[in-house]
């Protein structure tokens, strides 16, 4: 089984579980903070893959109830759009 150092949580930004755990050790307790500290969720897919995984890790490590976790702010555009298409729209 893969150890934490090579288990990828955020595929876009290449962030491992170990990096998320280090952020939690440093005192972060929300997905928003983990995002700013590690960049998990800041890549191409805007956290579509890792958002749930980060929340699961937070729930597991800090005993949080998933229903009480504050969602990360969703920002437009919902998928990457080229500057040219936006400029011509």
């Amino acid at each position: 089984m893969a150890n934490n150092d090579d288990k990828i949580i955020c595929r876009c930004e290449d962030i491992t579980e170990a990096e998320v755990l280090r952020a939690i050790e440093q005192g972060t307790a929300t997905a928003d903070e983990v995002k700013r500290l590690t960049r998990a969720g800041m890549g191409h897919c805007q956290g579509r893959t890792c958002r749930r995984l980060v929340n699961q890790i937070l729930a597991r490590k800090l005993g949080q109830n998933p229903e009480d976790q504050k969602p990360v702010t969703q920002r437009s555009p919902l998928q990457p759009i080229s500057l040219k298409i936006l400029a011509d729209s």
Partner: protein
Amino acid sequence: MPKSTDIIIIGGGIIGAATGYYLSRAGYRVQLIEKGYLCAGSTGRCIGGIRQQFTSEGSIKLMLESVRHFSDMKEELGIDVHWHPGGYLFLAHSPEKQEAFLANIAVQQGFGLKDVRWVDAYQAGQIAPGLNIDGLLGGSYCPSDGQAYPFAVVNGYAEKIKSLGGIVNTFTEVTAILQSGGRVQGVKTVAGAEYQADIVINAAGPWAREVGLMAGIEVPVEPERHEALITEGVDYLNIPMLVDYRADGGYFQQFRHNGQFIGCYSPIPNVPGHSTASSYEFLQEMPKRMLKLVPALGPVKVLRQWSGSYENTPDGNPILDRSPLDGFYVIAGMCGHGFMLGPAIGRMAADFIKNGAKEPPVAEFALERDFSSQEAMK
């Protein structure tokens, strides 16, 4: 309740974090209190540009110092803040702008910014490959201006505050400033906790007015919404930060460390208030302005948009001063330049507090001043 720290700082952005770091280094026990997460206010929403091209002596000299701090930061904080001296190029498309920039360059060089210079349109195109030079007369270029990553900088300072014996409280909102007999005593939080300290610093950025009022102090800082966007990372093109002050201009740069383009513009008319909502208008308009300057960026994809607050004073200069309430200091109103000014402002504020001086270190940063003059390179 017993006093746990020497100094309480309200606001976990660059100003609070840098000031807290330098005070911790000076031997004070610091408690940094932030109502959200670190950087949740203005700092984490800025585009990470760092320039020395200002027009007032105070700002130019502070920025010369800040750039030294940014370039030493990796070693000093033990964290890579992605400092990169990629330069800033201010574009002049009119004779008036050219004349103003030439005058500014003389002022800047006089105050010690030696590498700022006027470049003609051809040179600008060499400095910024792909720049559209149609109608361009030239620009004011300073290669030692640069960029860094705001989250890393603030996090680095916060970790240092902790390792030097201080405390960092996130998700802790201050609702009252405790005072007695004309002296500040501490703060009270929304959860009802009271923390005592002899010195309390208002570093609340866009909320500096509200925090000031808790102490009965008028702080003339008004938030103003600015929108921004960021693209995917692409190969680094070695283009400096481009600043186009025309009504349909904007500013953007490419991060050296991951190739993302990040940019914003100042809306006309301005948008006062605390809102950090995003508009579709900006998402259409900013790409137009970017492609007007660098047409080859067309295929680069936008990942997200957001907005944040400038925290403006009436004259465009910061406030760094004590206040009529003994022990209550105000370090705010950075007018959209807090991230770049932060390291030097933090160092200066810590020295000011340590020395116990009556007058602020820079007269133009006084809390009670004539706010009618203007910083031209806002």
